């Protein structure tokens, strides 16, 4: 203490110097930091300036390039040309030139130079586009095509008119003669009869029919020509279809009458005009003569092709420019990165300098601080020692006092607890919201609390003893007492809900519980219990039940509303999609076609959504019905795969499916629902997969005698699904996330529906997924097994033990094929590419066990299927290997192409198991089936003879249906309700009625019933139902109403064609009318004869010999491939059968004659067989006319 002033002085001095040092350090640090910061700011400003400038330049460039392309596109488009066209390309040029002059950066210069070249290209391209445009405007302003097609049409109509009049005149002439014969008698009658028989009228009338038939064909071809979109098809149409028809017409025109007659001359002239109109005067459009329709169409198509070329070139140049701009941007990036690196270096240098100074100062500072602290500690230690001595005495006294106080407090607490417990019970009992009672063993009440009064509606005094029993409702009394006694006897606690009735008459529901009290010996002492007023809870329960019923009803209403909405939406959608399909079939520009395609796909998309919603509503309302049918699982799975293959392969995705051989094929269940789930999952996978594969695999989980549980795995290599999204994925209206919905569309209902369907089929669905790698949806279903099913493939067949090499780059596809052929007990090798395949084949050949068979995938990298086939066939050691090629839908390979490289047979992927087996077996045995290209639907449409009546109340759908009918070649009329159907059928005997089920006034079901009633057992009109209700059960309803077939709306053209084709087949079976026209026969019968035979007898006896002979000759001619012979014999037979009015036989002969003339052997066998059958019918009708047959 004495030394304090001296020590204090030293401490104060030390603190002052420490402060000074600190201040100095701060000043130095601020100075250094400030300098560095200001340098950095300067550099950053410069960096930002440079960056902005480069960015702007790139943007401007990109903008100019875009404008230039847009301008070229607008020139090529349909819009009229603006006047200020040149500016944007010139602008781009100026821009590049300006920068070239100003920009000294050596990195940018080459990019600018390239841009300059490209701008030049663009300008040249624009010149080309303008030239095209001039040509296009000339062609477009010239409405020659429309005029020419109009002229051709009117010429055809004119020819038809000439035919009609000429044929009519002949018939009229004949009719007049016939009438004269009928009205005359004796010698006169006989003369008239001979005149009729000698006239060549019938013959000529037939010639007219032939001519008219060709004319109709021509009319159809002209329409096809006008609508053709492909150049090569156009020429084909002209050379191979139109020219032959024209030639046939020319030839046929000479048969129409005597040479030089007015009809023949006019017809010949008109045909000549038609030729000029269609093909042109000289066939050369450079000539001055008028252009034909063909040339005009060709020119229009060529223009279109040129435009496509221009657009492609523009795209190429633009890609160049885009690339150059990208390079430019890259250069800019490089420059900016350089500047940034320089800044970083500067900062690092400043930082090191600061660290050096800073650490020096810090050492000094720490040393001073240490000295100060040492001095202060010495002083404090002296003070501490003095205070510790005085504290020890005070603590001993305090401890004694505390011990005395503790004993007294403990006694008081025991008393207090007892009192409180008593108090607590009274308070609880009095204030408890439930009644409490205590009874003796006999049931007399000893105690009840005040709340009991409120609940029972009687005072405590009244309740004591047996008084309490009066509170129970008389109706419940017996039951309660019984339960009470039972619980007392059995020792259980009493727990029951029953009613109290107050003296005022009010009824309350109560819940009472009590427990028996027993002594330690087990003797019953009494009961303690509670009673609780639950009237309010009861009421709430009742209300709740009512509310739940209301909610259920509202769900029902909702589902019915959805079903109605779906019907209402489907009806106009039919209009949209149908009309668009018809529109697409007309001649459209590429742009229009694109728009129309968009409408169609959007429409179909919308329809899919509506179907989803409808399904979902049905599931939710518990209305989804499941059928129980026998079905073939293999067939169901392969059918589903085939349906989706095209979509997948169009995206370039490998698409494969495989049903494990252990899976039972013949099952019972609802194949439609199974297909729905598979389609949903597969198309989902295809949708979310851009590259790689989508595969389906079906395996057996477990099997009993009656049931099989199957597992389906749909795996893809798509975008995958995050773990968080997986939980909600199977809930309705969820997709993986909102952005997915924006990108890929969809309602998010599909998976919810799948889940519901799978669960209804006794299975589960789950998902395994890795984001970026892909997803696998796995679901199981339980299906019954069919009791009777044929055993699997017989163990002994052509493929057993045969060696086969599978060449497929895709692992999954290869694996599936492998497992399949192994199941067939083949010996298998699998390789991934062509080089390995060759190596393996050669090795096997060297080892003396060569592969006789190889299955090759068409689409492989490096060496594709065709190249591999060529390589194999080129190597003599392995050239014997028979090759089967797996191709994709939409890949057009001609038979020659495939045969030339030595392919024995081929199949589309994914191939049906049974087809693959047939194919492999066929190739192994060495008889590949002859394959002919199936004609496409387009070329096979021709005029149909059935008359169709369409009943449809919606005006738009009427037009759709009419258009579709026209397209399919049917003549159709349309009416608006059931009454009109009946009226129309009275006037015209329609063959087919397309019947909308829901129409005002009289609906389709009623109308059908009325038609069936009228028909009785007579001719049956074929009735096809059309309905917008997609509910299952509709079909049954339609058939039950007497309809024959069913098509659902919106009606797709393919579906319609299919049901009409079916109708056609059924009707032609039905329409086997009389073989011989009875009226003709009657007429012949009445003709007076010569000698004892009448004319009919004579004719019949000749025909009975000549007819069968003619057919023998026909078969013989076919055997020696003599087309001219067939034509001639058929012609003769046609004439002789015509005299009896055997019209069907005549038809077959006419077709044979045409086939013979065209040298078309294909239909002959069938026609001769038909003619043979028909001849038997004719002979059977005719033979009774012979006198000796009557005996």
């Amino acid at each position: 203490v004495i030394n304090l002033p001296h020590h204090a002085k030293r401490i104060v001095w030390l603190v002052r110097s420490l402060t000074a040092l600190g201040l100095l350090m701060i000043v130095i640090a601020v100075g250094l930091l400030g300098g560095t910061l200001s340098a950095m700011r300067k550099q950053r400003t410069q960096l930002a300036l440079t960056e902005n400038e480069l960015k702007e330049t790139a943007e401007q460039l990109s903008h100019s390039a875009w404008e230039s392309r847009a301008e070229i596109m607008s020139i090529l488009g349909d819009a009229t040309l603006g006047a200020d066209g040149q500016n944007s390309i010139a602008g781009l040029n100026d821009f590049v030139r300006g920068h070239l002059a100003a920009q000294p950066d050596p990195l940018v210069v080459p990019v600018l130079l390239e841009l300059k070249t490209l701008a030049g290209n663009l300008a040249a391209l624009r010149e080309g586009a303008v030239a095209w445009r001039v040509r296009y405007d000339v062609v477009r302003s010239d409405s020659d095509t429309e005029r020419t097609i109009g002229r051709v049409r009117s010429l055809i109509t004119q020819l038809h008119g000439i035919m009609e009049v000429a044929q009519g005149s002949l018939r009229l002439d004949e009719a007049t003669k016939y009438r004269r014969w009928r009205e005359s008698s004796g010698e006169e009658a006989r003369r008239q009869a001979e005149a009729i028989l000698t006239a060549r009228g019938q013959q000529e009338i037939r010639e007219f029919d032939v001519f008219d038939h060709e004319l109709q064909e021509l009319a159809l071809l002209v329409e096809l020509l006008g609508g053709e979109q492909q150049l090569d098809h156009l020429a084909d149409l002209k050379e191979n279809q139109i020219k032959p028809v024209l030639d046939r017409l020319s030839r046929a025109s000479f048969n129409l009458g005597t040479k030089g007659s007015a009809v023949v001359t006019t017809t010949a002239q008109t045909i000549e005009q038609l030729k000029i109109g269609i093909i042109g005067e000289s066939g050369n459009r450079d000539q001055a003569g008028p252009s034909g329709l063909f040339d005009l169409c060709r020119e229009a198509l060529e223009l279109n092709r040129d435009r496509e070329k221009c657009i492609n070139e523009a795209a190429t140049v633009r890609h160049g420019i885009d690339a150059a701009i990208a390079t430019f941007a890259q250069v800019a990036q490089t420059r900016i990165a350089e500047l940034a690196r320089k800044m970083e270096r500067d900062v690092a240098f400043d930082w090191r300098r600061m660290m050096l100074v800073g650490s020096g100062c810090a050492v000094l500072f720490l040393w001073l601080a240490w000295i100060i602290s040492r001095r202060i500690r010495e002083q404090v230690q002296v003070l501490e020692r003095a205070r510790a001595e005085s504290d020890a005495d005070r603590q001993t006294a305090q401890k004694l006092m505390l011990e005395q106080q503790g004993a007294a407090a403990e006694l008081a607490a025991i008393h207090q607890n007892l009192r409180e417990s008593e108090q607590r019970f009274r308070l609880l009992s009095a204030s408890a919201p439930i009644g409490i009672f205590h009874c003796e063993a006999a049931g007399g009440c000893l105690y009840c609390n005040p709340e009991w009064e409120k609940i029972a509606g009687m005072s405590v005094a009244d309740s004591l003893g047996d008084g309490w029993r009066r509170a129970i409702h008389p109706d419940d009394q017996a039951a309660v007492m019984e339960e009470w006694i039972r619980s007392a006897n059995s020792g259980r606690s009493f727990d029951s809900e029953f009613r109290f009735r107050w003296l005022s008459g009010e009824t309350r529901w109560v819940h009472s519980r009590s427990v028996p009290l027993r002594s330690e010996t087990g003797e019953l002492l009494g009961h303690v219990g509670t009673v609780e007023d639950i009237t309010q809870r009861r009421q709430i329960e009742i209300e709740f039940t009512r509310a739940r019923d209301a909610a259920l009803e509202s769900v029902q209403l909702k589902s019915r509303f959805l079903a109605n909405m779906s019907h209402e939406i489907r009806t106009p959608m039919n209009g949209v999609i149908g009309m668009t399909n018809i529109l697409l079939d007309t001649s459209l520009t590429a742009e229009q076609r694109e728009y129309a395609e968009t409408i169609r796909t959007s429409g179909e998309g919308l329809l899919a959504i509506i179907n989803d919603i409808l399904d979902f509503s049905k599931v939710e309302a518990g209305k989804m019905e499941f059928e129980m049918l026998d079905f073939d699982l293999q067939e169901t799975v392969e059918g589903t795969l085939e349906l989706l293959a095209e979509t997948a392969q169009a995206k370039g995705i490998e698409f494969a499916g495989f049903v494990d051989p252990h899976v039972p094929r013949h099952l019972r269940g609802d194949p439609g629902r199974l297909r729905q789930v598979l389609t949903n999952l597969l198309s989902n996978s295809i949708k979310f997969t851009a590259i790689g594969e989508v595969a389906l695999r079906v395996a057996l989980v477990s099997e009993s005698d009656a049931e099989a549980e199957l597992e389906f795995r749909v795996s893809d290599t798509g975008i995958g699904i995050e773990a968080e999204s997986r939980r909600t994925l199977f809930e309705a209206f969820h997709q993986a996330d909102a952005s997915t919905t924006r990108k890929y569309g969809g309602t998010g209902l599909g998976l919810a529906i799948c889940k519901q369907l799978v669960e209804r089929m006794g299975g589960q669905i789950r998902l395994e997924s890795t984001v970026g790698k892909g997803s696998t949806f796995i679901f199981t279903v339980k299906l019954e097994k069919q009791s009777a099913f044929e055993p699997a493939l017989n163990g002994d067949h052509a493929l057993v033990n045969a060696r086969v090499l599978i060449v497929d780059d895709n692992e999954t596809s290869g694996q599936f094929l492998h497992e399949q052929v192994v199941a067939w007990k083949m010996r298998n090798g699998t390789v991934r590419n062509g080089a390995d395949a060759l190596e393996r084949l050669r090795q096997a050949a060297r080892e003396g066990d060569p592969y006789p068979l190889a299955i090759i995938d068409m689409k492989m990298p490096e060496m594709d299927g065709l190249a591999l086939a060529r390589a194999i066939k080129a190597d003599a050691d392995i050239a014997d290997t028979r090759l089967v090629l797996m191709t994709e839908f939409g890949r057009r390979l001609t038979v020659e192409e495939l045969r030339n490289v030595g392919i024995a047979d081929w199949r589309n992927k994914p191939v049906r198991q049974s087809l693959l087996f047939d194919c492999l077996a066929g190739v192994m045995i060495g008889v590949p089936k002859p394959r002919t290209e199936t004609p496409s639907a387009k070329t096979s449409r021709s005029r149909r003879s059935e008359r169709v009546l369409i009943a449809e109340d919606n005006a738009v759908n009427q037009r759709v249906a009419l258009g579709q009918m026209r397209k399919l070649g049917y003549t159709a009329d349309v009416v608006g309700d059931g009454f009109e159907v009946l009226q129309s059928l009275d006037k015209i005997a329609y063959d087919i009625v397309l019947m909308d089920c829901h129409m005002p006034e009289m609906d389709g079901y009623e109308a059908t019933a009325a038609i069936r009633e009228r028909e009785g057992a007579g001719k049956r009109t074929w009735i096809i139902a059309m309905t917008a209700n997609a509910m299952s059960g509709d079909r049954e309803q339609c058939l039950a109403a007497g309809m024959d077939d069913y098509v659902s709306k919106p009606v797709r053209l393919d579906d319609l064609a299919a049901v009409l084709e079916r109708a056609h087949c059924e009707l032609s079976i039905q329409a086997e009318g009389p073989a011989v026209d009875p009226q003709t026969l009657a007429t012949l019968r009445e003709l007076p004869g010569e000698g004892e035979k009448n004319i009919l007898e004579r004719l019949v006896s000749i025909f009975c010999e000549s007819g069968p002979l003619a057919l023998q000759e026909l078969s013989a001619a076919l055997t020696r491939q003599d087309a001219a012979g067939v034509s001639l014999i058929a012609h003769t037979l046609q004439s002789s059968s015509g005299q009896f009015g055997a019209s069907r036989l005549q038809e077959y002969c006419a077709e044979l004659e045409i086939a013979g003339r065209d040298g078309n052997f294909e239909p002959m066998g069938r026609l001769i067989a038909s003619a043979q059958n028909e001849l038997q019918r004719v002979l059977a009708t005719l033979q009774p006319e012979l006198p000796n047959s009557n005996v």
Partner: protein
Amino acid sequence: VNGHRLRLVALDDGYEPARTVPNMRQLLEKEKVLAVIGDVGTPTAIAALPIAIEQKTLFFAPFTGAGLLRKNPPDRYVINFRASYDEEIAAMIDALIDGSGLQPRDVAFFTQRDSYGDAGFSGGIAALQRHGLQDANQVLHVRYERNTLAIENALATVIYAEHTPRAVVMVGAYGPCAKFIKLAHEAGLRALYLNVSFVGSNPLASELGPLEVPVVVTQVVPHPLDSEVPIVREYLADLKSFDSEMKPGFGALEGYIAARVMVAALERIPGEPTREGVIDALEGLGEFDLGLGKKMLLGPQQHQASHRVWPTMLRNGAFVPFSWVNITKLMGGGESRRP
């Protein structure tokens, strides 16, 4: 009329429905006419009708008897003057069956293959069914294509027929009808030919020339030279004062009477006439008489003023008034020539 001056805006659609539509638009939207009067033909009326209904404008007295314009209950915006095709054909059938004792199977139909021909045929069948026809297939029905003269096939079918018809009801244009009659005559068919008003009496008469065949055309107005009828007298006088060179005709008379009905209605409107007001005034006419020989009736449920049909027959190259009473005589004339 009541101090207002009527203005007639006349547009020609050349009997082309495609031209009817722009004409209607011009009349209703640019000219803002009070009402459309005297449209000619069934197809044109079908094209015009939706526009008139959409614009809520009266479509008055179209020159057609098609059932489409005679709905029940009637369209508010369509009011007809003349009898329908059904009524014309019913009058023919009544006269043939009741008047001259023919059986339904003695009647054949020759119709144009379109809505006009359909309308006529279904009207005829309905009328025959009233007279006891059981099976519509018993009735011979032949057709021809519109805008052609190719009637030979149709005629051949008639001549081939088991039962030769004694009367042919024709629903077609004058060209093919005339050709049919001529060729039928040449082929020895002896029958009575009956045409509806739309065929055009004058061109039919000049096509047939001096041919001596019994031909009847029903009309929906009196003969334009029959000055016994008061309104015809007034028409002839008005025509002369308008243009003394102009020849009277059936069509012109129909137009004249339609205009007179319109004026009679307009006179009942006290203030400024409106589109709706015109219809109310026409419906308010009730039973009225313009000197047609029979009273006419218009009302909210009655949108066709006249139901009467006047028959005319061919004599010396022209059509003259004729009474159904004499139909047997006309048929008998045909009968006597049969061998």
